[in-house]
């Protein structure tokens, strides 16, 4: 049998481990990502519709791993909770609930990329602040979103590259999925890879996903038909990914507000 001192030590260790897990500060959290996208929900085919992802979870379900970036960072994910998607076309909104395990929230602080991932791809159905250029090179571009975008920035790029040149409120945003924050950037919505122009710039999503993400309204697909393919507009011919859709992932803790939750 353990001595009483050993029991006390074991108890203390358990307490430390429990506290370190974040359970002591666990809080309900809502992840909401708003964008405009092209795709299909059940029989509804849509182009440039308002698309909103929402997942209700708890901060104690946030997991950490090593960033996919060679320069370090943390990969935060949360796959526990009720996840829904809404699609609004001409003011009419359809809401679908994902089957458990179909999507998860993801924020890679090293890459400066965030969004909703799935078993199909970590960057699908949506990833924010992905590179607009084929990476590592046009000939070897087989996976999308392995590098971030630095052109039209957003808060994701700023938080990945902190320092002078950003407003105090921006730099104060937490890099976390467990604390209130605002993560924005250009939106990639593609299960495969984008088509390329001669210079290796990404254009539009080359193919739909092999299967729909399972929801109670049927399969859900996104396939970016705008991407970087826009021709120049205005007197100075803004073009490409500066005219792409963008998105905002809002992380909001809601202690004291009751949410439905699926375990």
């Amino acid at each position, binding site marked *: 049998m353990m001595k009483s001192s050993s029991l006390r030590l074991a108890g203390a260790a358990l307490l430390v481990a429990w506290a370190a897990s974040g359970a002591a500060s666990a809080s309900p959290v*809502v992840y*909401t990502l*708003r*964008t*405009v996208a092209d795709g299909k929900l059940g029989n509804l085919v849509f182009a*440039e*519709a*308002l698309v909103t992802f929402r997942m209700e979870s708890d901060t104690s379900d946030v997991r950490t791993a090593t960033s996919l970036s060679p320069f370090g960072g943390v990969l935060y994910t949360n796959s526990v909770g009720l996840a829904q998607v809404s699609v*609004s*076309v*001409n*003011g009419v909104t359809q809401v679908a609930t994902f089957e458990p395990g179909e999507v998860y929230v993801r924020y890679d602080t090293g890459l400066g990329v965030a969004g909703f991932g799935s078993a199909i791809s970590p960057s699908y159905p949506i990833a924010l602040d992905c590179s607009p250029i084929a990476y590592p090179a046009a000939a070897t571009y087989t996976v999308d979103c392995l590098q971030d975008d630095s052109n*039209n*920035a*957003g*808060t994701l790029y*700023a938080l990945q590259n902190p320092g*002078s*040149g*950003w*407003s105090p*409120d*921006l730099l104060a*945003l937490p890099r976390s999925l467990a604390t*209130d*924050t*605002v993560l*924005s*950037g250009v*939106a990639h919505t593609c299960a495969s890879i984008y088509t390329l122009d001669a210079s290796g710039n990404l254009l539009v999503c080359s193919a739909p996903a092999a299967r729909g993400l399972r929801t109670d309204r049927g399969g859900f697909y996104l396939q970016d038909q*705008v991407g970087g393919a*826009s021709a120049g*507009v*205005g*007197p*100075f011919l*803004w073009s490409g990914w*500066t*005219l*792409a*859709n*963008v*998105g*905002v992932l*809002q992380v*909001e*803790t*809601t202690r*004291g*507000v009751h949410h439905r939750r699926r375990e």
Partner: protein
Amino acid sequence: MSNHARRILGVWLFAGSACLLAVPALANPMTYTGTVVTTIKVNGKTYAEALVTVKFSGDTANIATVVTPQGTAVPSFYCTSSNPFFWLTTGKAWLSVESHGQVLSTRFLPNQIFVALDSCNGGIGFGSHTGPNGLEPAYPLAFTLGTAMSTAVGTGLSAPASMSGNAWSCVGYPPGPIGNLLGTSNQECLSPDPYPLMTEAGPVVFYLPYRIVPLAGDNHIGTQNRGTFSITPGASE
């Protein structure tokens, strides 16, 4: 690169006492909705990282070009074609603020905001009758770049559409000098605190918390706020 575009909407600063010239059109009720996650103050209470929704319900028949008091088109330094600036001032407008599970909804008092369009340079959103010149094209909430820009120079305010882009809440837009516009004295947006918009819930102030510092030279990409804007058929109540 972005200097050229500082002209977007900024020329409206010249139009502080602009009047309207109606464009003949068929009556077609339309609702304009913009969303952004930002910092806002309502009746003295500040909400940070809140979902802010601005909605305006009007009729496309009332979309008008902006002209000077002499009846001529408001000039655009870079857009020399016919009138590029439009607005919709007749209608009802609402504000919604969602923060930590709580929702505050209210109505703007009449003549506080209007729907704004720069169909040449590519800006779209909500302007207001406030600021040092009594007219702000990118305050409380306007969008540049993204698909918002493509739509602004395309179908404009008259056809249903959804778009996303860089979100500005800027008194004094454009903050950076461009053409014969000097920008603001420090090339930042002016403090919005002296220019509250009035709602039934009290005065409202929109902030631009996420941005490049200084904004000089970045009248397009200077904001790091992003949001959506939609045009949907029908009136809203």
